[in-house]
């Protein structure tokens, strides 16, 4: 065997190993859901059961946490998306001094550890008499999720052809008309995907939420507390359901993204032949 071949097989082996490493833990966790054992494990296998789904279904604490997480995610969506869009519009319009500073400031929440965002939010709002709870969780999560939204909208905004707006102006459209009929529709796909990501980010957050949740529990906090006290495979059942939902969402998102990318490519190719 030549050295080229050894290298090729070596790298294939490595890639296989990497994906095994990535997926085995998740598969083991999912499989443990069906084990009829009081503690979540796959060794030894004590028989296959679906009873842990039933236990999860009957757990009122889980439902409470789920509804809190949903309320928080909806709240984050409602605040972070408009902020992100506004900031992207600002960055794509403003030319002048201090722009780099403002941009850096907008990125800073992404480079700040989540626990610190939670702590500073907690301290700031307590000084105004607001204590931890659902409202504060929404605020704290918005702090960094808005930055993600901003980056995603900005990426699309950079490919925007401003002559479209100018054309509408010279045809007599008002500012509001241009904004509603040209700019916003163009941004819509990015706004939707940013919304999906904002929702997921909020739903999955733990490190920030932990500090500002007060006496309320979110789904991730519920899982973490169950792992440490009173762990049963019901937690695995919840994990399995969340994984399935996430995989579906990620697949839809990815298919949509690729579809758009292909459409954009075709458009570009068409434009090329037209020239």
């Amino acid at each position: 065997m030549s050295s080229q071949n050894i290298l090729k097989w070596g790298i294939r082996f490595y890639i296989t190993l990497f994906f095994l490493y990535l997926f085995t833990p998740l598969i083991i966790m999912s499989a443990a859901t069906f084990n009829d054992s009081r503690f979540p494990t796959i060794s030894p296998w004590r028989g296959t059961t679906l009873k842990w789904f039933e236990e999860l279904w009957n757990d009122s604490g889980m439902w409470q946490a789920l509804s809190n997480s949903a309320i928080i995610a909806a709240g984050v969506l409602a605040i972070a998306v408009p902020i992100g869009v506004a900031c992207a519009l600002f960055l794509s319009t403003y030319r002048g001094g201090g722009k780099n500073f403002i941009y850096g400031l907008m990125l800073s929440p992404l480079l700040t550890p989540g626990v610190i965002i939670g702590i500073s939010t907690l301290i700031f709002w307590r000084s105004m008499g607001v204590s931890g709870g659902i409202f504060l969780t929404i605020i704290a999560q918005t702090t960094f999720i808005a930055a993600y939204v901003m980056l995603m909208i900005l990426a699309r905004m950079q490919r925007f052809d401003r002559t479209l707006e100018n054309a509408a102006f010279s045809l007599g459209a008002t500012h509001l008309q241009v904004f509603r009929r040209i700019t916003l529709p163009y941004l819509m796909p990015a706004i939707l995907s940013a919304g999906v990501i904002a929702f997921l980010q909020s739903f999955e957050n733990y490190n920030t939420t932990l500090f500002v949740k007060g006496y309320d529990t979110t789904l991730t906090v519920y899982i973490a507390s169950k792992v440490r006290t009173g762990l049963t495979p019901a937690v695995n059942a919840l994990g399995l359901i969340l994984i399935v939902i996430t995989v579906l969402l990620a697949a839809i998102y990815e298919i949509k993204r690729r579809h758009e990318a292909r459409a954009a490519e075709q458009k570009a190719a068409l434009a090329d032949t037209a020239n």
Partner: protein
Amino acid sequence: MFKQLSDRFGPMVAIGILLLMLLWLVMLVVLPQVLMIDYSLRPNLPPSQIGGPNDNYTLSNYVTLFNNQIHQTIFFKTIWSSVLVTVCTLIVCYPLAYYLAKVATPRQAALCVLLLIIPFWINEILRTFSWFIILSYRGPLNALLLGMGFIDRPIRFLSGDGGVIIGMVYAYILFMVFPLYNAIESLDGNQIKAARNLGSGWIRTHYRIIIPHAKPGIATGCIMVFMLSAGSYAVPALLGSPGSRWFTQIIYNWFFEGGDWNQGAAYAFILLLLCIGFIVLVMRLFKVGLGDIAR
């Protein structure tokens, strides 16, 4: 500032944009941080004495860390462990990112990226929990090792820092893969071919062509993984034990068990300084700017 916005969007939308932006940057981003620093510089007083003669600025909350041997040990352990996690993820991810970006066919690469995205979307808590199951005393890993005869009795993986580091590498590895992949992908394949044609060996090609080009990606990956590791609460809480506490857990205890928010704020600010210090160090080391990182 207002004129440029208003020329493009009209005064109404321009006001809306500026209001939303200011609301976010002032109320959510800047003021909370400022107040946290202010808190960290004040003594922990009963409510009746706040604003009184004893409420002076002091560095005593910061001195605590220097006087507390245990906290100091944990602080440095957090740094070294986070660096270790960062280095591990970089070493594991580089060959993969190179393969995806330059060796694999477009279809293979697309499939692999999709396979990478799926675990990326799954909750940090769940990914950590899956290792909790694997590493537990009566878990599958111990069963496997026992079955194969490598060990005589189960190992307590979850009682030291080892479990925490394994969990972190797993939880944050994808934050390294994607920046690396994006950076290497943008390299023109002809440069690699040219280097090969001019007689450069594999190691030299990587060292002189690919790694210099991938610098912004390496820097981004390292910054993200370090920050996530040093600031992680979930992983040490799930996979650690009282003997392997993380710096974030001490901060949490100041807030919710010690009831000393001023002290907690000081520790939180130290953690923030550590992360900023790491970012600056990496940017200097790799000679990249903030603009390269956000891409």
